[in-house]
């Protein structure tokens, strides 16, 4: 029996990505690169008004245009059910039917009302122009507070209100919080602060627009949907519900997907419409979003008003945190939108101890594009509120913001598995450790000294430093918790590992990466665990025909759930291979050591390599009685807890008080995601997350006018930062393994986006504090900063 030598371990090393080869050579298969013979082009006729009744639609002219194959209105294209909404947070939720094509009225600018199908992309565009809709414009409401006023225009008349329902932690959380906050806010001995923050509406801006291609085998009633999606599995299930095509006849493929950030974690009207068209016409169809169209038609993120109150002792011990949110849903409740604010529900007291905690939120309908998950979903909101408030409290108490944080951090020795004030249990953390590292990299004392010197010299440019010490819950998620929260699906994921007869390994995962590098990381995990060559591991994903089971990629679950499922499948394989090895080597299983792919009889040089065992299990000539042929295993893993990464970020800014412009001078991120499988990829996730977080703090805002027109309706008016607008990042880490899984890993996909916005705004407010500025709303555009300075001065 030959022994295959394996020298180095690949887990924990920065392996270059397996994914890159096709991407750097222009051979990738993005959805717009897919062409099916006989394919027709689809175009959507969308409402130009935010709120308008449809009195009639004249499609005659469009139908007459040569090359136009079909034009349908909402009444002509049938569906088995409206688009699926998966998170009815409680019985209070008001969920209006969301028809793929609206029938009665448009509820946001961009609401699709009719669909055209033509022989070419250009003809479809021409046909859209020929559809004549008789609109009766209605008053629109786009402000969340105004929408709750008694005389506000109503988005869904059947409810008589724009209030889409509330969720209250005390009442609705499956885990009890530490105590009611009222006694603390009534206590005259305590210092209280109350803050209100407005979070702008954001447009996710994955650089690949959305798109759908549906191929059809009409006689067989079989369909293949290629969609630029993060969630092929969830899409298949929900399309089955909406279109009435059984799963067995429906294959969903997420080809190469050019970024998501939540925007492709959705069941969109266009997915259902294209499938329905392919069925109705018996021909393949394709729809590719244009960017400006996508600004209306692809989900938005975050818009909410946050009210947060803190009560603390005079020497800075935090006692109570009370939070009330009002969140914009836009015109409909999309896939998981009602629950997005809830994903922050247990995090508004941050990394800090407190005795009492209250949290609630209200969802509101407005005449805007629907909102849903955007990178971080609920958690950046929470971190923003508490981290801004901690700075405000520090100012109120005359304390250093770092000292205040240190004083209130949950101590390292409380872990593992410490139940925090909001009621959930955090697996592991060392908050002091990450902050200390951040301060060391920054050289905090030197920076404060420089700031003091500059202020004394009266330098024109103002130097500021801001911190964000964050924690979060990701890796969605333990199914029991999701069930208790009325979430419409499980939080498990699937992984299959199979040895091919010649010893290469085929891995199938239920997560659906779109830039994260999961193919590389998963190959690292399997190669090390099974002792095979990294290059011999092939990782497949994103196609329901290859991977029938899965819950897809969002909420930083690729590593936290997907890789752990894989590792557990690997354990099953090793167990089976061990039995076979013992059979072949004629020894007891306990006498075998497994290392580097070899089972060795302890104290001897007799061994069997796993590849040979795989071959023998395939020929099945000599198996122990009762053993099935083949060496493979599947694991459906349901994580017992969320994943709880944390970190300390710091931003240094220079503000020009005359122009209000902000320069990010330094950005330091120290994150702890437990054991890192591939540090290069961890760093990449932090870079991208921080970039989006800084953008959220400084540049990005979807603005509407009073009539509900999207003013920032193109990529030139909505500022996605380019290379000059962002600083280099100083990325560091600490490693506190998670006790929840055998590898000790945690999710890292959203860390940067969660951490960065308060670090940036705290830095700006710190810079401006000598001028008396206490708050700058985000995005902190030069105009906003300048105005904040003028207001403080007057």
């Amino acid at each position, binding site marked *: 029996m030959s022994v295959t030598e394996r020298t180095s371990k690949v887990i924990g090393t920065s392996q270059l990505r397996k994914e890159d080869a096709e*991407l750097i*050579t222009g*051979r990738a298969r993005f959805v717009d690169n897919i062409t099916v013979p006989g394919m027709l082009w689809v175009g959507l006729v969308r409402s130009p008004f935010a709120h308008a009744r449809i009195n009639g639609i004249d499609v005659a002219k469009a139908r007459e245009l040569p090359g136009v194959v079909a034009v349908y209105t909402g009444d002509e294209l049938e569906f088995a059910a409206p688009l699926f909404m998966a998170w009815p947070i409680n019985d209070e939720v008001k969920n209006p039917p969301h028809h793929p094509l609206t029938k009665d009225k448009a509820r946001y600018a961009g609401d699709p009302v009719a669909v055209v199908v033509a022989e070419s992309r250009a003809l479809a565009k021409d046909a859209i122009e020929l559809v004549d809709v008789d609109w009766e414009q209605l008053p629109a409401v786009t402000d969340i507070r105004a929408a709750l006023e008694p005389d506000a225009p109503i988005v869904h008349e059947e409810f008589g209100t724009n209030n889409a329902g509330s969720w209250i932690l005390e009442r609705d959380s499956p885990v009890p919080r530490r105590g009611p906050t009222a006694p603390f806010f009534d206590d005259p001995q305590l210092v209280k602060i109350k803050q209100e923050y407005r979070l702008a509406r954001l447009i996710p801006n994955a*650089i690949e627009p959305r798109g759908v291609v549906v191929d059809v085998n009409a006689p067989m009633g079989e369909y293949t949907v290629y969609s630029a999606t993060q969630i092929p599995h969830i899409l298949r299930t929900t399309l089955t519900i909406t279109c009435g095509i059984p799963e067995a006849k429906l294959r969903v493929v997420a080809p190469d997907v050019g970024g998501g950030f939540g925007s492709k974690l959705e069941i969109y009207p266009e997915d259902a419409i294209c499938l329905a068209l392919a069925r109705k016409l018996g021909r393949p169809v394709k729809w590719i979003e244009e960017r*400006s169209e996508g600004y209306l038609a692809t989900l938005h993120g975050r818009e909410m008003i946050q009210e947060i109150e803190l009560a603390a002792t005079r020497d800075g011990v935090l006692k109570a945190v009370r939070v009330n949110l009002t969140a914009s849903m836009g015109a409909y409740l999309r896939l998981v939108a009602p629950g997005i604010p809830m994903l922050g529900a247990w995090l508004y007291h941050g990394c800090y101890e407190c005795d009492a905690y209250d949290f609630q939120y209200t969802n509101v309908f407005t005449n805007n594009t629907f909102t849903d998950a955007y990178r971080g979903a609920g958690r950046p909101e929470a971190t923003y509120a508490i981290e801004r408030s901690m700075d405000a409290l520090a100012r109120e108490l005359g304390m250093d913001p770092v000292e205040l944080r240190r004083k209130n951090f949950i101590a390292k020795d409380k872990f593992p598995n410490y139940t925090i004030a909001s009621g959930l249990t955090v697996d592991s953390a060392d908050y002091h450790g990450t902050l200390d590292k951040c301060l060391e990299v920054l050289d905090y004392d030197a920076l404060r000294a420089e700031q003091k010197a500059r202020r004394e010299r009266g330098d024109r440019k103002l130097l500021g430093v801001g911190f964000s010490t964050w924690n979060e819950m990701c890796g969605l998620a333990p199914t029991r918790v999701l069930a208790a929260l009325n979430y419409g699906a499980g939080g498990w994921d699937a992984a299959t590992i199979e040895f091919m007869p010649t010893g290469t390994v085929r891995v199938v995962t239920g997560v659906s990466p779109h830039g994260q590098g999961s193919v590389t990381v998963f190959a690292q995990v399997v190669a090390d665990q099974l002792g095979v060559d990294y290059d011999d591991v092939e990782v497949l994903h994103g196609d329901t025909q290859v991977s029938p089971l899965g819950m897809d990629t969002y909420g930083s679950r690729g590593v936290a759930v997907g890789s752990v499922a894989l590792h557990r499948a690997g354990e099953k394989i090793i167990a089976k291979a061990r039995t076979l090895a013992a059979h072949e080597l004629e020894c007891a299983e306990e006498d075998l050591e497994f290392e580097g792919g070899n089972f060795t009889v302890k104290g001897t040089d007799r061994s069997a390599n796993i590849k040979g065992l795989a071959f023998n299990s395939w020929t099945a000539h000599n198996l122990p009685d009762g053993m099935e042929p083949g060496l493979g295993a599947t694991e459906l893993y349901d994580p017992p807890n969320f994943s709880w990464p944390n970190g300390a970020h710091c931003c240094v800014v220079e503000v020009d008080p005359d122009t209000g412009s902000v320069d990010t001078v330094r950005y330091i991120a120290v994150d702890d995601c437990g054991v890192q499988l591939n540090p290069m990829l961890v760093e*990449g996730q932090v870079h991208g997350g921080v970039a989006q977080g800084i953008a959220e703090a400084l540049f990005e805002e979807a603005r509407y006018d009073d009539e509900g027109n999207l003013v920032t309706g*193109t*990529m030139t008016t909505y500022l996605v930062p380019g290379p000059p607008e962002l600083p280099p990042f100083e990325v560091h880490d600490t490693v506190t393994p998670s006790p929840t899984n055998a590898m000790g890993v945690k999710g890292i996909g959203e860390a*940067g986006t969660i951490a960065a916005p308060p670090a940036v705004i705290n830095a700006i407010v710190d810079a401006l504090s000598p001028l008396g500025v206490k708050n700058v709303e985000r995005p902190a555009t030069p105009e906003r900063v300048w105005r904040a300075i003028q207001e403080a001065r007057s």
Partner: protein
Amino acid sequence: MRSIAITVNGVRRELDVEPRQLLVYALREQLGLTGTNVGCDTTTCGACTVHLDGESVKSCTVLAVQADGREVTTIEGLQSNGDLHEMQRAFHENHALQCGYCTPGMIMAATSLLKEHPDPSDEEIRYGLEGNLCRCTGYHNIVKAVQAVAGA
């Protein structure tokens, strides 16, 4: 329809195009060169960047007829003899891509940037790539990749 001839990645291609046909769609849909991506409709994102007579242009703003008689290089034409261009290798080695959608345009823009500024500062790289957006990487590693080629 108009008949035009473009030398694409060294090969003369003849095609009939509508006068309104954009170069990017002529490349993608008529010549099957789908490496060049489309990310916007306002000439903002740079995903469609190719070289036209050796200079980088956004192919979504050039009409196919304007390329008549000229030379176009796309991401598919960057390799020579099957070897990766050094910029392609640098992007790979420096983890300068995640989803990869911006990557072809970014690599084309970066190679032409270095032609103009063979020894750029980080700042010059950032300004030189100003017209190319990436939502995944935060640009940090893209700057590193370009610097790696410049320093080579």
